[in-house]
């Protein structure tokens, strides 16, 4: 796990709001990055630490929701905390559906914001951990041969060795060898674990 400070990215065009959020977030030992526009955020180099995005729903030149969609398309998975003025209910609904963590109405309580930020960071941390695990699995999966992948799929589908041999027109011994290879390469200690791995890889037939 990374030992870096969690990073919070604040995008708000109001300088005094940025200053307030800056001192508040720094006072709880967060690494704060301030941006006055989405464009500025996109152009900046960001640390690869767990973190979240704090954003005003009404950004100059672009609505926060549009920006949220853009980020999703670009594969930026940072959790987003929206800050809004009141009277933006439809927008709140849209933002939450699109995966916003929290939607705060100004003037919000400082503790509420901090709680939301920590929750978001925790979520990001979990997501990152999952991503690391998944990446490792994917790397292992890529090492399997074509035949081993076929065997893997049938094993997680719950077939016995005999059935697999019949289906793939192999001898039972050969199936056993492939199966042993799969278990070894994937680092699975049991069939149950292998099933869970396949689940995460979202392989066809694993359902």
């Amino acid at each position, binding site marked *: 796990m990374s030992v870096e400070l969690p990073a919070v990215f604040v995008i708000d065009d109001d300088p005094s709001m940025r*200053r307030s959020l800056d*001192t*508040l977030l720094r*006072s*709880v030992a967060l690494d704060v990055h301030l941006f006055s526009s989405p464009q500025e955020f996109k152009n900046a180099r960001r640390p690869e630490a767990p973190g979240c995005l704090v954003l005003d729903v*009404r950004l*100059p030149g672009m609505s926060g929701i549009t920006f949220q969609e853009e980020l999703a398309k670009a594969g930026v998975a940072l959790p987003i905390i929206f800050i809004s003025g009141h009277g933006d209910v439809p927008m709140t609904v849209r933002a939450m559906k699109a995966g916003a963590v929290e939607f705060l109405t100004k*003037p919000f309580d*400082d503790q509420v914001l901090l709680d939301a930020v920590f929750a978001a960071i925790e979520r990001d941390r979990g997501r990152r951990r999952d991503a690391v695990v998944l990446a490792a699995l994917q790397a292992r999966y890529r090492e399997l041969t074509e035949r081993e992948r076929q065997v893997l799929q049938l094993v997680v589908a719950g077939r016995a060795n005999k059935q697999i041999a019949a289906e793939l027109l192999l001898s039972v011994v050969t199936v056993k060898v492939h199966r042993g290879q799969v278990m070894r390469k994937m680092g699975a200690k049991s069939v149950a674990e292998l099933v869970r791995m396949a689940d995460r890889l979202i392989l066809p037939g694993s359902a």
Partner: protein
Amino acid sequence: MRSRKAYRASSLPEVMRGVLRRYGLALVLAGLALFLDGILPFPEGVGIYQLPIAAVVLSAWYGGRGPGWFTTLVCAPGLMYWFVPPVNSFEVLPHHEPAYFIFIALCLLVSEFSAGRRRAEHQTGVLAAIVESSDDAIISKDMDGIITTWNASAERMFGYAAGEVIGKPVKILAPPDRVDEMRAILERIRRGERVDHIETVRRRKDGTLLDISLTVSPIIDANGAVVGASKIARDISERKRTENALRETDNALEMARAELAHVARVSALGELTTSIAHEIAQPLGGMIASAGAGTRWLSTEPPDIAEARAALANIAADGKRARDVIARIRALTKRQTPRKETLDFNHEVLEVLALTERELRRHDIMLRTQLDSTLPHLQGDRIQLQQVLINLILNAIEAMSGVNDRPRELTIVSTQDGPNAVWVEVRDSGTGLDAKSAEKVFEAFYTTKSNGIGIGLSITRSIVEAHGGRLCVSPSEPHGAVFRFSLPVTEEALS
């Protein structure tokens, strides 16, 4: 000829009668002179000429040059035939010739002089008639301020008959507080200066006061000395009354306009409630966040005083910001009579944008401003001019609310329009106006909004016009409308 006839006061028969009377008298006088010469025992010699000369003098005096000559024409041959030797013949003995010719010359001369005198008297009479019939009071006074003449209008205006005031000091016409003014006027007259059309107050016989316009000129005699003054006074009380009435109407109108503008302003602010609430919530949120941060900075071990201080500074800044927002709104909702002050229009634009920018963003409208930093200052009512901008901005927001296929853009431009005016443009990319509604948008109670009462733009125009400017609207290319108004830069604002 025709036009001359038209100007004649009397009809043709009357003129003919006048001619007949003058020449008839001339003929009668000539006949009478010759007849008396015949029956009266005049001594021989020049005595016979006395009566004809008298006849010529009388007819010329009465009838002018023509009748004088006519009498001469009748008397000369008559004398020659009956009285100048040789008698009863149209001949003159040589030693009588000088006397005879001197007689004719004298007659012509006398006719001429009498006629001149008559003309002068006639002219004086005309002038007197003009003075007498004038609508203005015409009074003359001598250098001691004693009234010497007094015309009919003076009688009518001041209530004194001529007989009552001639010989009295002119001071009786001055109310007590104007005696000094009268003295000053007399002083200027003494120096030969003229006092032109001053507006002042005089007192009537019954003690009531009278507004007059007064012109006083020195009367200068043949030697060039100032011997008196002529005063022409015009009664302007009617005009003053009208002016006062007009001013009162104007004031009432101005008050009504201010009242209506106030209502419209409050209603416009109503449309901005959401954005204004945000403008307050923004600094409040900042204050809460900074206060929380400050507390945490002080709770660390050791406390971070510098950070805590910075957080406090943030709180103060946000507090001031919220206060400014409230001050802006309070100013706009205040009911006040319009007042002129020197102002920088760009500053007013920024003030209004501080209240409306959020509203623009709420409607996904891009704001562009091009404010000319060299804009001259102008004179105007700050609040009403802000209202003009708010109305135009709200109007633009409304016009763009249905636009989804192109960017919503609002452009505000301020620039100089010649040396004496400021030019402002508010341009939107909304639905625009067709020629028909372009004429109508400024009419009161014309509206295309479902919830509007249609006084916004009409008030906007009346405010601009009350500032001596004009407001018009035209289509913007390729979409939308552009409202333009100019405001004059007054001399006082320039300095």
